[in-house]
């Protein structure tokens, strides 16, 4: 390439300069994005040990302007992760511990009579959902009615009380957690509502080194605290940048074929035909593509690759692909089905 440049004509050189000027903007933006993400990771990493994939997943959800569902046994630092994120982002943070007796008003707020200068007025008192980052802890312990109230707010990013609609502040980011072990007294989220989560992230048990780090950090006299490194405006700018990233046709085609392959009616994979009841909704493809863009930006690239798609497919699809009775009975994991699809799916179509 270098040789080619040296033999080009002056007009070609001027064209190159113009193109260089045009590409400086995106280059700078991407560089800035990468740097900000790096700083954020570093800051969060001061408090949260390990779980790099989960942190990246949560960041991805946030940058996509969507929400994440964290699944893991208690004590793995889910709440700490979300709180640390809120600290590092200098955003409002609210935590809702879901219980069976919780009502929708406990989340979205309620209208109360207030006295102001001797006159009584009905005033709306905002619930915890009016925060930038909401931690919905153990969401599956709330009744479906309460869950629906939260999930509607997540989707619409606004709440309607009485006749008044209240818009939620941007960025709005819900991180819900659920415990996969305890099922008694819980209300598992319906499939339609699971679909509203951008990613479903599995929080893994830390390894030996990570446990050492956790113990060192949490049993000393000084507790690590994350400093704010990004503000609302920066986050919104980053979200905007994500949407500008172009996608090559073959990559998008791969996402579409991947999505189709999760449907037993259109797939060619035996595992899907045998064990899958419903494939992913188009939201799954949207999530994959957006996440791939974010991943490319995090890596300093201008467009997502097939590897990005493959890396994002599992958290984006695992809660959107529903197994049938046979799959459940045989203990088939959705991740295994998705891995098999990605292994067998040709990278490009003819």
């Amino acid at each position, binding site marked *: 390439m270098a040789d080619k440049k040296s033999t080009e004509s002056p007009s070609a050189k001027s064209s190159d300069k113009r193109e260089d000027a045009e*590409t400086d903007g*995106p280059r700078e933006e991407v560089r800035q994005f990468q740097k900000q993400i790096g700083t954020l990771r570093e800051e969060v990493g001061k408090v949260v040990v390990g779980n790099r994939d989960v942190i990246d997943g949560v960041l991805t959800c946030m940058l996509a302007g969507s929400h994440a569902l964290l699944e893991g046994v208690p004590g793995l630092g889910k709440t700490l992760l979300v709180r640390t994120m809120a600290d590092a982002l200098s955003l409002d943070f609210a935590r809702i511990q879901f219980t069976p007796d919780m009502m929708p008003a406990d989340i979205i707020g309620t209208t109360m009579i207030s006295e102001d200068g001797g006159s009584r007025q009905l005033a709306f008192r905002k619930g915890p959902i009016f925060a930038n980052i909401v931690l919905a802890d153990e969401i599956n312990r709330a009744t479906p009615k309460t869950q629906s109230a939260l999930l509607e707010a997540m989707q619409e990013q606004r709440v309607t009380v009485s006749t008044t609609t209240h818009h939620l502040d941007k960025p709005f980011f819900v991180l819900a957690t659920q415990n996969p072990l305890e099922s008694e007294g819980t209300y598992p989220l319906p499939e339609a509502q699971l679909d509203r989560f951008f990613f479903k992230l599995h929080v893994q048990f830390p390894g030996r080194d990570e446990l050492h780090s956790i113990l060192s950090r949490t049993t000393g006299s000084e507790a690590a605290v994350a400093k704010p490194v990004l503000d609302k405006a920066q986050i919104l700018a980053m979200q905007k940048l994500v949407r*500008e990233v172009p996608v090559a046709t073959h990559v998008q085609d791969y996402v579409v074929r991947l999505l189709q392959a999760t449907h037993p009616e259109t797939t060619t994979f035996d595992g899907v035909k045998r064990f899958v009841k419903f494939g992913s909704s188009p939201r799954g493809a949207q999530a994959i593509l957006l996440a791939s863009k974010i991943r*490319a930006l995090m890596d300093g690239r*201008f*467009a997502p690759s*097939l590897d990005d798609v493959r890396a994002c497919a599992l958290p984006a699809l695992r809660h959107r692909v529903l197994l049938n009775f046979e799959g459940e009975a045989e203990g088939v994991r959705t991740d295994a089905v998705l891995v098999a699809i990605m292994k067998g799916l040709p990278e*490009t179509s003819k």
Partner: protein
Amino acid sequence: MRLARVIGAGSIAVPVGALLAAAVLAAHKILGAVFVGDPRLPTPVIDRFAMLGWVVVGSVVALVLLVAFSLPLTKHAGALALEKVHGLSGRLSNAIEFAAIPVAKRDPFMQAAIDEACEVVANRPHKETLATSKASPLFAAMIVGPVVAGLFWLMAFGVFTGVALVQIRTPHPPPPAGPPPIDALVLSQDDLDLFRDAAKELERGDQTPEVKSAIDRFNRLIEDLAAKRLDRPEAFKQMEEIERDLLSGAEADRKRLEEELKNTAKALEKSELAKPASESMKKGDLKSAEEELKKLAAQLRDKTKKLDKSQLEKLREALKKAAQQRKENLAAVNQRKSELTEQLLKKKKELAEEKDPNKKREDERLLRKKERELERLDREQQEQQRASRELERLDRELAQAAQDLMREAGISQEDLEKAAKDLEQAAEDMNRMEQESMSQKDKEELKKKLEELREILRQQNQGGKKRQSRMVKFSKRARGGSPSQGGDDGPEGDDGKNGKQGNGKQGDGKDGDGDGQGGKGGKGGKGQGKGDGDGDIELTIGPGGVPIPMGGSGQGDGNQPGGDGSGQGGKDFGSGKGGAIAGKETNPNMGTVDVEQQGLDSGSGPTNSKVIEAAAEKGFRGAAYKKVFTDYRTVAEENIDKETIPDGYRFYVQRYFQLIRPRD
């Protein structure tokens, strides 16, 4: 990448093509060997077919390789392969994709992606320049693997084809075959003993050579079966041969003898005096003929009754003719035979000298005809000679009687006495012939045994190993052994519905109490009576011959109060045991025959039912059982002889009695 694809396709197509080519070659060789010199499929045609086959196989392989090369590659296949090898994370494929978009429509990110891809490629160190050989490793991944695999298959097919061709080219003589393994027929020891005993009974000193030979062969057959040297076809073949020889010889001899006796009778009937004897001879009633000849002798001796001369003359003529005619007949046959032999020799000589093929064929046909005629005459001569030997003494005696009567002129009482003696001697000859005809009965008995053996083997085949196993167990029990002896204590199978073992209490002869239940077929009853009860025995012969329950049921005539009811199983035949007999229930509509037999009470020893019960438990042994068995068998045989038992069931009755026969 196309080359790699061609090699990949070739690694499958070439070995398969080689296999097909080898198959064509093998077919060429085989057809060439089979149809060598055959105008239906000449060698050039086979060659053409083989050539066509090879051309087709080669064309298909070439076509597969061509298609593999010419099919388009997938989109960005090369870029993606390079990205994988060099860790470019989609930069190349994205840049190519974006570069295809007109510049005006590209957004800054697309342009930046293209520029970045160019920079990444351009700024790589020299040693890390993009290498297509790594992206599509033809040699390592695509050549070595398939070629090695292909070579392996080629070698395998080559070896296979080579071995096949060598085998076709050099026909090997068949390997020296040892005795082929046979599926030997197994006859239970009990049945073997049965037939050995039967053969022993048949063996006597005064039998004809044919009968002796047949009995010897029968013995050998039984011993071969005992040694498991015969399979089913061979055993049946031998049985058929024995039977055929036995019957054919016997029939021929008997017919010839009857014919010759009829001729003698025909000659004698011209005399009024010899007519009664002649009539008996015609009927084949030798005993009666003997008596009539003796009567004639007595008539000649009788001094009180003077016989008419003309009558004596006629008798003399008749006796003379009867004595001579057989010799004349035999001489005629011998004459005809010698003439035919002469003609045959002459014809053979002519045939050797004949050169015209048409005439030669005609002569050969005539020669064969004459040979057949000679064979027939030979047989006739032999039969006649045998019959002559049988009747030789009779002829001699008749001739002597005729000579004695020839002294007609001065016929004296002495002469008549001599003639009478000769006739008495002739009567003795009749007696001898009658005795000799007894051999015929032995033949029939042997034939019967052969039929039984055949039927047993046939039945055994239907039952299979299960039946054999049951037979072995039964034999052990029949001899008084326990079925569990020898470790052979498996559960006994049943042919059909299980019979239920009855439990019965045997009447003790005084009050005759007994009840019990037999198998499906019979049911014991209660009976009360005292002393002189006459029981009835009921034999029920089941269809298919399988179950023949024999339950005791009788009627007791009590001579004490209460003893005159119609209780079953009186003193003598209280139904102690139902038969532990497996099989289908007796169908009353299937031609069953009830035979009633009056029970015998000797007044001493155990009752028949006790004997039978003891036999069922301890085996078929002992004098008492032998007596009971003999009584019952006699009844059964009488009924078989009277044909009250249908043909199809006779074997089963006989077989039943064979199985329960007393063992020594």
